């Protein structure tokens, strides 16, 4: 079992809700990005998702589109993101890190070769948004051989009959997409999320973590109550937007601290 899955299963089995922030790699600049990774850990995140920016992020809403464009303009590549994760590891980042990206930058970075370099840099898993189960066979074996978890999405549109096939290719955790939409777009409805997570849990005991639309302590608490935890990206990046350097790091720590407290309150209640 890869380290990502081991760690998240352990968190869940302790009765703690999983908190996974998403950061756009190289945003706002390389140094701030490394400090933001460490801030996630300081604020009580259980893992972190690292976006490798792509020029054409068709599954992302306006916030991640904008942070991706900023990062690319500053010269961010798959390899600078891996180097930054390695730098954060050297500075004490211990929580698992999952690369989240699109397939084209992965292909350009060498496909299987990218998987090996990612593992070497201290990544623990990979989620390629535009590799659904049908196409996962092209990259998932290389990722698994490199020791990476291969996270797949389950969406509200996914019929139950598809779920076993998706899960057969999925490891680390199941990324449950709370709403049919793009990142940061709509607000999830608690009953829809509960129904989705229940559908997933009928087929696996992998941690079921919910992303898309979790934006504040209240929504984190509501979604966490019916799942194993939450992923938060656009709202975190929005909280960071408008300040730079140390202030941005402080903003991230404060925002995530609020989510952590909300999740913990629910878990202890």
């Amino acid at each position, binding site marked *: 079992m890869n380290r990502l899955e081991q760690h998240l299963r352990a968190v869940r089995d302790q009765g703690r809700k999983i908190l996974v922030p998403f950061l756009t790699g190289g945003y706002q600049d390389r140094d701030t990005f490394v400090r933001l990774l460490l801030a996630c850990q300081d604020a009580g995140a259980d893992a972190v998702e690292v976006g490798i920016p792509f*020029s054409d992020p*068709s599954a992302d809403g306006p916030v991640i589109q904008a942070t991706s464009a900023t990062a690319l303009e500053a010269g961010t590549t798959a390899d600078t993101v891996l180097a930054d994760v390695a730098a954060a590891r050297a500075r004490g980042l211990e929580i698992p890190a999952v690369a989240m990206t699109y397939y084209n930058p992965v292909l*350009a970075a060498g496909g299987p070769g990218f998987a090996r370099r990612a593992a070497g840099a201290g990544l623990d898993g990979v989620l390629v948004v535009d590799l*659904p189960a*049908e196409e996962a066979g092209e990259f998932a074996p290389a990722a698994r051989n490199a020791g990476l978890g291969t996270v*797949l999405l389950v*969406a509200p*549109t996914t019929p139950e009959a598809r779920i076993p*096939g998706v899960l057969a290719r999925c490891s680390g955790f199941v990324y449950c*997409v709370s709403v049919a939409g793009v990142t940061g777009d709509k607000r999830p409805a608690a009953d829809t999320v509960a129904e989705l997570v229940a559908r997933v849990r009928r087929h696996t005991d992998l941690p079921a973590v919910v992303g898309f639309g979790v934006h504040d302590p209240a929504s984190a608490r509501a979604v966490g109550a019916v799942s194993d935890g939450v992923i938060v990206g656009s709202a975190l990046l929005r909280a960071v937007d408008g300040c730079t350097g140390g202030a941005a790091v402080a903003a991230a720590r404060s925002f995530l601290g609020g989510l952590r407290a909300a999740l913990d309150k629910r878990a202890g209640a």
Partner: protein
Amino acid sequence: MTDLQPRGHYGPFGGQYVAETLMPALIELERALDAAADDPGFRAEFRALLADYVGRPTPLTRADRLAAEFGGARIYLKREDLCHTGAHKINNTVGQVLLARRMGKRRVIAETGAGQHGVATATAAARFGLGCTVYMGAEDVRRQAPNVERMRLLGAEVVPVAAGSRTLKDAMNEAIRQWVSRVETTFYVIGSVAGPHPYPRMVRAFQRVIGDEARAQCLEAEGRLPDAVVACLGGGSNAMGIFPAFLDDPVDLVAVEAAGEGVPTGRHAAAIAAGRVGVLHGMKSYFLQDDHGQILEAHSISAGLDYPGVGPEVAELARSGRVRTAAATDAEAVAAFHRLARTEGILPALESAHALARVGDLAREKGPDGVVVLNLSGRGDKDLATVLAWDGGEGGQR
């Protein structure tokens, strides 16, 4: 269908590279397409619309004064410029809108570059009373104002897309985002043989009438098949409209990409000549991209060819050698536009003018006994401002 095996690959190209949220919609679409293809009622309705609404069959016009410019083979023009709305795009949008209605969808969305596919989608949606929203790069909205007005007159909502390079690829990204948000009620009408399976197959199926007609018309006029068929190539809808009827024949198939200011300048849209294998918009194919897999902006004087990729089946036909590719620059396309206007009395679309720019080479290659068929995919009225600006010196300064 729960085996979740890869579908819709053409050699190493094609596939379904989309987020999970869209996969069920693609599976639903494929089932509906298969059912429609097996339904004589659907096929008859499609044929009737092509005849009575689009205006098919379009003629195959012998172009002797154009051919005389080159002194080689006889040249025939497949007159898609005479279709309703002025281009071949309507063949496909009528088919997809019929399918959308059959699937019970009340609303269609589309991406558009120059606006031709947007106009064709708005037209078909109006004909069947479906809501229509068209996503168009903000830069294209500015450059193609008359087509924006046409779409609005047809009852469509036109949404300018301010992200990225503000052109066709960004419009397609936004259409995908909007589709994912309303996937249960909305049908996405893609305009080229591009995108995830089953779109390339579906668009080819609705466009292949071009080649089926042209093949029969050439046999009628010449008593034999042509020696070569030539079409311009952006995403590939008009090329994959005319080529399939000839794939099993001893006929040269030539696709002409947009070389923009010249392939060596980097300012072009020649994805096969200068692109690398990658994944965008749901398909694996050739794309213009940098060493890190970031998609590059395409450039062509023709907005309809201004796309950094190409459909997967065309990519495979080029890779296998069945389709030969060539390229024509902006300047060559404008020269070919003028040549056809003056020799045949036809203003071609700047897209089609790229094929016209290479037809002389083919005519000379095939010699005086040869026959060449060219897909004249659209008419050039929409391009008057562009051509006049070029002639006024703007083109020379770029």
